[in-house]
């Protein structure tokens, strides 16, 4: 009985839990409740993935209304995988959140924090699960609005400005997406993704359909922080509370990349996206520039959090590149990197969260000698950094390997060169932090720091070790990613 309704539960669970948090109010209770909800969400996501892998696509009609009137939740390998990524990051971050949030957010706003956190989770899961283009917009707004609040809760006063800027750009992004969907609705008369896929080929010569794909690319590209639409991201990540940064960095941009995949392959279809519109060239340009500029800027950053934020922009470039290549291997590279990057960036931002918890600063120069006083935290950064670079036996290596393989298969050797070069740049910015942390003498304040508490270290190391585990055993990640890629590419008309 309950299995049949898992798709609805996936979204409804955190959605209902969010207002309940406001009713509970007590910080400790709210945390406990939110934690249980995220864990339950993870269980649901995993169950869904297993169902999909065993029995193929799940179609769920909300409230029993048939499409095109009702909203349809539609789960295949691709979004089931994304659901697992989002839910698992949300679940792992929660134990970390208790003390970190208590430290960084004003005490009387903590219940609001968790409420927003759950709403954001609702939005992200909803975006991934829905099979309706307009419904996707609704969830996009839910996740966006809640994330503006989450960012604004940061201790630094600049957080407010960062959130404001993100609000402006995020709203533009959502609006663009909506305009794009509007065009499609006018042209085809439907909002259901599967129906859209069937009807678009008949109207693909209409100028409005061409405009639609441009609007949607820019709209979602903004949310995904595809270079040069990333301008909101560095400040937002830098000044948000540590937990929020880790959560958003690992999930929000990933979900947006998934939306691009879904829209390009399922809705418009590969023939239109790459055949009629020169999407390969556009995306390759954006992805390549992102990889290069993101990495170069990261090298010169003075704040470790900002440094990682720019590195995210570069990493998003990898995913866009995989998407641009458009072959099964390319798309599986993009999808597997969704997962792998969530693990590395989630882990690395949690590491910075540990440091903030003890020292309150993430400026690179304030990290001098932190390797001595916080050995476990610093070691986690090194391992995560190795994965970011793409050293063999880490997830980063797997992503790059598949991506380079995809590029060479299709003859884009310059893309492969760019990936390698960008990894070299990654060595530089990771090394900067490592050098300061290990090879510089600690100041008196840093020398006096204690190792982060266990409750912070455990989730951090869980994500960091996932980098190693999934770097060695790729059967789950790469296997599912490849299946998802096949479904996505095959699903188009």
């Amino acid at each position, binding site marked *: 009985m309950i299995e049949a309704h898992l798709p609805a539960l996936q979204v409804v669970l955190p959605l209902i839990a969010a207002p309940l948090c406001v009713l509970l109010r007590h910080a400790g209770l709210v945390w406990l409740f939110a934690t249980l909800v995220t864990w339950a969400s993870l269980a649901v996501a995993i169950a869904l993935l297993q169902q999909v892998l065993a029995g193929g696509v799940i179609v769920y009609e909300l409230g029993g209304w048939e499409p095109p009137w009702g909203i349809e939740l539609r789960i295949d390998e691709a979004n089931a995988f994304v659901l697992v990524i989002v839910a698992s990051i949300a679940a792992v971050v929660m134990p970390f959140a208790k003390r970190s949030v208590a430290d960084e957010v004003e005490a009387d706003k903590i219940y609001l924090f968790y409420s927003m956190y759950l709403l954001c989770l609702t939005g992200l899961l909803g975006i991934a699960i829905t099979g309706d283009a307009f419904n996707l917009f609704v969830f996009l707004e839910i996740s966006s609005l809640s994330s503006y609040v989450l960012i604004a809760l940061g201790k630094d006063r600049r957080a407010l400005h960062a959130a*404001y*800027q993100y609000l*402006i*750009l995020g709203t*533009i992004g959502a609006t*663009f997406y909506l305009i794009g969907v509007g065009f499609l609705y006018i042209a085809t008369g439907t909002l259901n993704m599967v129906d859209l896929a069937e009807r678009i080929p008949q109207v693909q010569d209409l*100028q409005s359909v*061409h*405009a639609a*794909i*441009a*609007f949607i*690319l*820019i709209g979602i590209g*903004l949310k995904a922080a595809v270079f*040069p*639409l990333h*301008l*909101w991201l*560095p*400040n937002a990540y830098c000044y948000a509370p540590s937990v929020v940064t880790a959560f958003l960095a690992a999930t929000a941009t990933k979900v947006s990349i998934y939306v691009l995949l879904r829209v390009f392959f399922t809705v418009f279809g590969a023939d239109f996206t790459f055949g009629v*519109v*020169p999407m390969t*060239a*556009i995306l390759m340009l954006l992805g390549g520039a992102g990889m290069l*500029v993101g990495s*170069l*800027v990261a*090298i*010169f*950053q*003075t704040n470790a959090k900002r440094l990682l934020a*720019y590195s995210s922009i570069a990493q998003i470039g990898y995913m866009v590149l995989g998407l641009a290549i458009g072959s099964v291997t390319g798309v599986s590279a993009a999808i597997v990197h969704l997962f792998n990057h969530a693990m590395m960036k989630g882990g690395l931002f949690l590491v910075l969260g540990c440091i903030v918890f003890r020292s309150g600063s993430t400026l690179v120069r304030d990290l001098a000698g932190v390797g001595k006083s916080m050995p476990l935290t610093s070691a986690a950064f090194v391992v995560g950094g190795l994965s970011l670079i793409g*050293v*063999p*036996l880490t997830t980063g290596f797997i992503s790059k390997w598949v991506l*380079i*393989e995809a590029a*060479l*298969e299709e003859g884009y050797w310059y893309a*492969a060169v760019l990936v*390698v070069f960008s990894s*070299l740049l990654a*060595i530089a910015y990771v090394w900067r932090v490592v050098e300061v942390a290990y090879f510089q003498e600690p100041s008196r304040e840093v020398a006096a720091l204690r190792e982060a508490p266990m409750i912070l270290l455990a989730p951090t190391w869980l994500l960091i070790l996932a980098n190693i585990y999934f770097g060695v055993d*790729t059967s789950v990640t*790469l296997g599912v990613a490849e299946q998802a890629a096949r479904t996505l590419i095959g699903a188009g008309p």
Partner: protein
Amino acid sequence: MTSVAPFLIFYIGGLLAAATGGRLRQAVLLATPVVGAVNLYYLSQGSSGVLELFDYTLVLARVDKLSLVFGYVFHLAAFLGAIYALHVSDRVQQVASTLYAGSSIGAVFAGDFITLFVFWELTAVTSVFLILARRSERSQATAIRYFAIQILSGMLLLAGILTWVSHTGSIAFDYVGLDAPGGWLILLAFGIKCAFPLLHNWLTDAYPEATPTGTIFLSALTTKLAVYTLARGFPGTDILIYIGATMTMFPIFYAVIENDLRRVLSYSLINQVGFMVTGIGIGTELALNGTAAHAFVHIVYKALLFMSMGAVLDRVGKIDGSELGGLYKSMPITTVFCIVGAASISAFPLFSGFIAKSMILSAVIKEGHLAVWLFLLFASAGVFHHSGIKIPYFAFFAHDSGIRVKEARPNMLVAMFLASCVCIGIGVYPEPLYRLLPYEVSYEPYTVSHVLAQLQLLFFSALAFVVLQLTKLYPPELPGVNFDSEWLYRRLLPRTARFLLEQASHLGVKLERRARIGLGRWVERVFHLHGPQGILARSWQTGSTVFAVISVFVVVLVLSYF
């Protein structure tokens, strides 16, 4: 008895060494290569480790005669190195050297490109700690240069492998050849590690800067791993004959004018590897046998020489030829061992160098490469000059520098003793080594003509010294170096070499200055764009961000109509 992939034992040993301390760690370090060798022996009786990863089958232990020779000698070198370094209580260094040996062995037994690449990178990562462990500012800088070049080699290898795999669909590491897709990239990657001419600087830069004990491991493993991979992937590739011949020649000149004795040995190492590369280029059974045999004996005697110099450095604290001398009075045993090493590298009959080098020389002349043969012959004489005479002479004899120190540490003496035994043992009784070689050996080293030819070569070069000495043709102006009458260089050699080098270095300095200015400008430009206040990095006004977004949108919109 079940056996495991050879590298695993070293990795476990490394982890144990990291976890233990004191005597226990010493025991672990010594036991690791021994257990490894026993394991390898059983492994050689058949069976191979295979691992499934992605869609590929990784061959972790490909055991055949070629990999076995290198495998055994790497174990031997790791064992000697472990004894030699026993007194060191530096966790980083000891763990790194064990892991480094394990990675090299892993690479030797890699049956596919992926495994090879992983270990290729791991050798770089683990070995860099042996240089860093010297803990001086200079060694830090050297280590970074070393690491960058090793990583470059790895990147080239990866690029080559990807090209190869995407064309052939197979990841098996067998004959590659230059005509294969990615062949040149792979050759270049191997060439960097093998210290091909112009790609060799990392070696002479890094080896003298490593710790006294670390150099033993470095000298034994990295270049010989590259020799192995070349022998596996590029046997009979003509260009290697000439590369190899060049490698035997050019280091001689550098070695003659170099003052740091460990750097002299580094140059001579390149010269020796040149013989092996030539052998690979010839590619006949005899030549490949010669290469394998030479690699085997070379690892041992080169380690012995580095050990003796390491012992001097360890006791005296410096290793510049001009500041040493007369050490035979205080380190007589080390002196004897050093001379054994010097005799071996000079290929005196009854020492190990003789039975191997002559194989390559014979193979070269058999294939009719007369000019190359003459080159190699000249290079052999050169080896005798700089490694056979210069090293022991400057360190232990020459004018008495008045330095009085204790004899080398007992564990070092034991290691040098064992290495000397191997050198002499193989020289006198080469059959066991010959049985290990990849092909059937029908080669007899101790024929009258071989022995006579080699002795002639050695005695005439000695005679040349004496003549030059009596006619006082010795260049007097070498600063700070008190050359006594026994020691003579040919006068022209250092002078021309120095002149040419000076010219080259003038040119080099100029080019470097240009490059530096150019690079500086470029970095400035990059920084201008990407630095914290650069347009790509600073926080924009909200209005500008919106403008940027709209601009991008317009571009995309226009493009989407095409």
